[in-house]
């Protein structure tokens, strides 16, 4: 008896999720598009910084490197709310970057998510590429390639492993709510993404709708992962 309402909620959530997708609801469509756009842009931005940084840490030996690696690994656990607050204070009109007027815009959300996942990309890339560097180091040095030249070589040769790293970053970005809520403001039709919409419906007590949105989000993340893996497999077969 007790579990009946919960079962009904689950059932109705599933039905609603299917209904939302089947209807091609325009509002939902825009939210999905914005979610994808924000998180993919954040991944691209974070990759631009994080992957070379990870590769550099994999090849470079300098005093304090151990400390940097530990710090980076710790930053992987940076709470989204903290990342959000940092960016909020930076972008607020009263903050150092206030004149840019970026707070409560999708751009601010991209920046916050990029800050959140850049350390993840860097730390994971370092791990993946350090193993490769152990194999490559002597041969590249024999070719006369120093650490700076080794960075792009490792990034290119590690491209398939790094795709998985990027997907991990994308997963984290698209799933987080704390940072985008703070810097985006969850403004309807402008900065509302899947996770903030889920949080909103949860606070309105519409748990089935929130769960339905969650299912749609999971389906999107699954699709992106499947697409990326599929492309990876095709490319890997061609390039080894």
């Amino acid at each position, binding site marked *: 008896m007790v579990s009946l309402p919960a079962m009904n909620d689950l059932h109705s959530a599933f039905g609603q999720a299917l209904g939302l997708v089947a209807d091609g609801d325009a509002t939902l469509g825009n939210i999905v598009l914005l979610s994808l756009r924000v998180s993919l842009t954040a991944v691209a931005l974070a990759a631009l910084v994080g992957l070379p940084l990870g590769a550099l840490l994999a090849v470079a030996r300098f005093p304090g490197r151990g400390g940097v690696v530990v710090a980076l690994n710790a930053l992987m656990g940076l709470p989204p709310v903290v990342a959000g607050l940092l960016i909020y204070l930076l972008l607020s009109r009263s903050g150092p970057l206030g004149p840019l007027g970026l707070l409560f815009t999708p751009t601010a959300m991209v920046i916050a998510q990029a800050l959140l996942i850049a350390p993840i990309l860097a730390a994971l890339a370092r791990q993946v590429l350090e193993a490769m560097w152990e*194999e490559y180091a*002597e041969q590249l040095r*024999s070719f006369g390639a120093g650490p700076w030249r080794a960075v792009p070589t490792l990034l290119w040769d590690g491209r398939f492993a790094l795709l998985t790293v990027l997907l991990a970053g994308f997963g984290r970005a698209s799933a987080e709510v704390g940072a985008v809520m703070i810097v985006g403001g969850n403004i309807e039709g402008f900065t509302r993404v899947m996770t903030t919409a889920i949080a909103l419906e949860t606070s309105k007590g519409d748990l089935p709708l929130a769960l339905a949105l969650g299912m749609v989000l999971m389906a999107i993340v699954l699709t992106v992962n499947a697409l990326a893996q599929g492309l990876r497999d095709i490319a890997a077969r061609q390039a*080894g």
Partner: protein
Amino acid sequence: MRAPEAILPLRAEGLGFSADGVAILKGIGLTIEAGRPTLVIGPNGAGKSVLLRLLHRLLPPTTGHVTWDGPAADPRRHQAMVFQRPVLLRRSVLANLRYPLALAGLDRAEQDRRAAEALALVGLAPLADRPARKLSGGEQQRLALARAAALRPEVLFLDEPCASLDPAATRAVEETLQALAARGTKLVMATHDLAQARRLAGDVAFLHRGRLLEHAPAARFFAAPATAEAAAFLRGELLW
């Protein structure tokens, strides 16, 4: 006869190397002249690989020094090295050949010319577009050899290049080595395979327990070794 970019002769004086306080090489004095291949032989653990790495500057010596007495300004550009286990980039066969050539600053046309020539040398031309790491072990080592040869080095270091190969693959590699030697490349090769040393050597450097016990023309070394250790090694007795 000596080209202005020649780097030989190579002179090592008082060369020693220790790792974690353990001496691996001690007091090596050696001069390597242009000409037929120099074979570095000796039992396992004698320090052959380390000697090659010191000569090729992959390792910094603990004592002594290595000098190139030829007139070339940048000796590094005129050497290459092939390792026991080929280190191939995760790219196509052709891209592996191009990589060091691009690093050496050759233009694309010259890269392609040299790559084609090197592929023909080792008989891998039909496999140019295959992923390098999907080749067989023998093919991979021939590719590594071709890659080194394409650089047209004056000196080519080889660290037990056939140690992991079957007899057929070994013969293919040796044929290539003969061809390179014939066209004037100085080979400096470590091996523990006496038969191979007899087939290829112009002169022999015999290492035992981190010391250079003999350096002599091959004919004299094999006919009348000057030390008891070399004589025992030639008789096939285990030496430690």
